């Protein structure tokens, strides 16, 4: 019986993240529009976009290879699995031990690897510019991410997200400077990884400024829908990781009943709403930076991570 329940909960999580990912983008877009005193699209516009793209036929370039057609599914599946393994409304889900934080980040790196290949497949210059910049940004973001993991693992003694979230809720941690630095660095890395302002502009179609959009320029129809959904899921991944590590309150423990799970779900959705508003406010208040400013931005994230580690070495309580 309990096995069936565990499977059901894990399945719920998979469907929940799939359902919430477009909604999160919807929130960000609505808030952004309101901050600019525009009406903005309705909240469900991302779902409509996906549905419309799904129904359309795919236009493939003449020389697109089989790899180009497979990649959207690989990217989508990899990202979806990664988000499904993050504790969102409940810790200790059935398969939560399948991959720790490092493995999840590597899984997203696999998705990015394939997407960058897709950018080169048709042999156009925009695809190349997107891919080459994407891998450059990744090469800066990954060391920073590792330093963040290092800081967190020093505090919690684990890289297993469920264990980390449970430890953070337990109150044994308290307020620490190093955790603050790690949070700041993680936010910076998340912005860079998800191609958000100021690193990349998700709404632009001005060729020379785009990174992610240039890479997927040749995609259309259901392929594009999957890639859009995958990038929405990726954004949800980072928001969920931040939520479960730094604002873990409300998340249901493994032995919690229906009530705890309902509280967990409600608090998760509330956290997402707050996160979406904050992201929109941040993006509205800042301008996109030049591509070759990115190293300084992510270098700062790396230094923050390093500083967090060093602080913990110097004093265990900071």
């Amino acid at each position: 019986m309990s096995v069936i329940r565990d499977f059901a909960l894990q399945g719920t999580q998979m469907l929940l993240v799939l359902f919430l990912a477009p909604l999160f983008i919807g929130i960000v877009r609505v808030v952004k529009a309101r901050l600019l005193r525009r009406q903005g699209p309705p909240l469900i516009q991302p779902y409509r976009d996906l549905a419309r793209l799904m129904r359309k036929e795919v236009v493939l370039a003449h020389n697109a290879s089989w790899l180009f057609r497979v990649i959207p599914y690989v990217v989508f599946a990899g990202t979806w699995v990664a988000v499904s393994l993050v504790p969102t409304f409940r810790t200790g889900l059935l398969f939560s031990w399948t991959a720790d934080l490092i493995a999840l980040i590597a899984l997203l790196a696999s998705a990015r690897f394939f997407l960058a290949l897709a950018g080169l497949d048709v042999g156009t210059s925009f695809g190349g510019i997107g891919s080459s910049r994407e891998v450059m940004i990744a090469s800066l973001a990954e060391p920073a991410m590792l330093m963040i993991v290092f800081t967190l693992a020093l505090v919690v003694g684990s890289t297993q997200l469920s264990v980390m979230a449970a430890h953070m809720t337990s109150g044994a941690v308290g307020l620490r400077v190093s955790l603050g630095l790690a949070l700041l660095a993680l936010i910076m890395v998340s912005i860079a990884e998800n191609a958000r302002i100021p690193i990349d502009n998700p709404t632009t179609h001005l060729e020379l400024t785009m990174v992610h959009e240039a890479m997927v320029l040749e995609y259309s129809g259901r392929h594009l829908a999957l890639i859009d959904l995958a990038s929405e899921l990726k954004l949800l991944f980072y928001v969920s990781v931040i939520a479960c590590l730094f604002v873990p309150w409300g998340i249901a423990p493994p032995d919690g009943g229906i009530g705890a799970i309902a509280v967990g779900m409600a608090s998760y959705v509330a956290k997402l709403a707050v996160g979406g508003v904050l992201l929109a406010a941040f993006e509205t208040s800042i301008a996109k930076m030049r591509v070759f400013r990115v190293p300084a931005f992510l270098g700062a994230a790396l230094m923050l991570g390093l500083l967090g580690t060093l602080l913990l070495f110097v004093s265990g309580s900071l």
Partner: protein
Amino acid sequence: MVISALSGVMALLLLSPIAVLLVASQRASTLIYASCLIVTLLLTAVGGECLFGQPTSSISLPLGLPWLGAHFRLDALSAFFIIVVNIGGATASLFAIGYGERESSPQRVLPFYPAYLAGMNLVVLADDAFSFLLAWEFMSLTSWALVVAHHQERENLQAGYVYLLMAGFGTLVLLFAFGLLAGNNGNYLFESIRTAHLNAGVGAIVLVLVLLGAGSKAGIVPLHAWLPLAHPAAPSHVSALMSGVMTKVAVYGFVRIVFDLLGMPAWWWSIPVLAIGGITAVMGVLYALMQHDLKRLLAYHTVENIGIIFIGLGLALAFKAHGMAVAAALALTAGLLHVFNHSVFKSLLFFGAGAVLNATGERDMEHLGGLIHRMPQTAFVFLVGCVAISALPPFNGFVSEWLTFQAILLSPQLPSWGLKFLVPAVGALLALSAALAAACFVKAFGVSFLGRARTAAATQAQETDSNSLAAMYFLSAVCLVAGVLPGIFIDMLAPVTNTLIGTSMPHQAGLDWLTIVPVAESRSSYNGLLVFVFVAMSGSIAAFAIHRLASDKIRRGPAWDCGYPDSSPITQYTASSFAQPIRRVYGTSVFHAREIGDMPPPGATRPAHFTVQLRDLIWEAAYAPIGAFVEYAATRLNVLQFLTIRRYLTLVFSVLVLLLLVLAI
């Protein structure tokens, strides 16, 4: 056991003269490579049997130095490396059955190939310093002969020259290391070296010498300079062996001396190893990113992986010195697992590069492109190799790097402050090298296999032969199996860590769902099998659902490219333009990279030019001065060549007097 291993080596050695006799015949190549395949498979089995149960066995033969004899021994460590060497050897032989048919000068390759395999096996089996060095030098010389097999090309001769110099340097340094290890009594048996206790100072000197000697063979920065020249110059199956296997034999030399013969390490020995490992990893991949020669890119990338292996070994040294045996076992397992993994995917990638070279006659990626259409199977296996080497789940490269990260995360428990600060920095370097490796292989695969063909040769490429494909498919299957079922391979290494550290990682095979748990489940765990199954399942479900419920229509049309598609394939991104952002971020300091654009004024009809200048600072700082000095000294001493007979006699006489004086004092 050791006797069967030695008879295998004898068989390989005998194949060399047979190859000389047969070389005129049509079938020589097939015959020799097939025999090599059988013998190496048998040797793999011997290694496997030793690792799974058979105890250590040793033998001494009345060969070599009369007062020493030749000693050979097969213990867990040798057995593991026997497996690595012979899996590489077997697949290279299988690949070569097809590849060798098209060899232009088989008489220069066939006789040396079995001898080279025998040499690598002998290094791993040797149990005294004399046999070890003899086998080491034999391995170097046979591989040198293979590097200069195509000596008509000037580049290859130069590569061979540099290689010979560096190999000689390495052996010389190792000779000193063994001299120190043997002590005043001159006892060169490994058995007696093991029981002798060196003081930490002498031990440190030995460590430095081994780092120089074995490290120059493995390709640690800054001793790597020969490697990217020599490895690509050889025929591709030999390149695979040199890059995938011989560098591992060098790692074996390091592990054997430092972990086995030197006894208990001092904690600060790990500092140079870790620092060199981190720097090697990042520098190797940065060099690789700047290349547009496919085989040279792969060779530089070997340097990166050697760095990753040395990070694992350095961590193991640090933990071992501080008596943290479990953590040391984890770090050593990570390093050795990466030895195995790298030998698998690097061989695979070199085979792929060889297949491309055969099909198009090109090693330069700027002349390739679109090969996925012409060579779909080679493209598929090459892609598997690229994903595996970029340390991406669910393939095997990720497992060993993940274990290395787990070992790094245990470093805060180390008591010494120097290591506490160093190890996180090394971890950041490791993450940087992993991300850059992914960039490097997006470039390698994307530019060579994707896009549009850039030359006529690439347009007319043909799929390679079935033997070569079989070898590559086998290796890609190993990449996947070792990635999704890593527990089996970790358990395989338990006897090795037991002999070197005294303990091993927790037994993995019995865990639920075949998960791997390096320390404790509350700390970290990874299940490659489930990740693979989940991704495959959700991908197929998505594909099925979308095709059923939404749309499955496809229309072919011209590329979109924001409305400005250009039909000329030279408008595509090239290897050099793909690396531009990374060159700009890292290369300006590391390589003093400069981009010089020459844009004609409006109205002028001359073409615009763009050139990139890169400087190899390590070569300029370390190698060029030595070369210049030797040149200078040789020129100055040249006068000695043109003396009269009287002056020669005077010279000889004065030297004699001088030597007698020295003796008298």
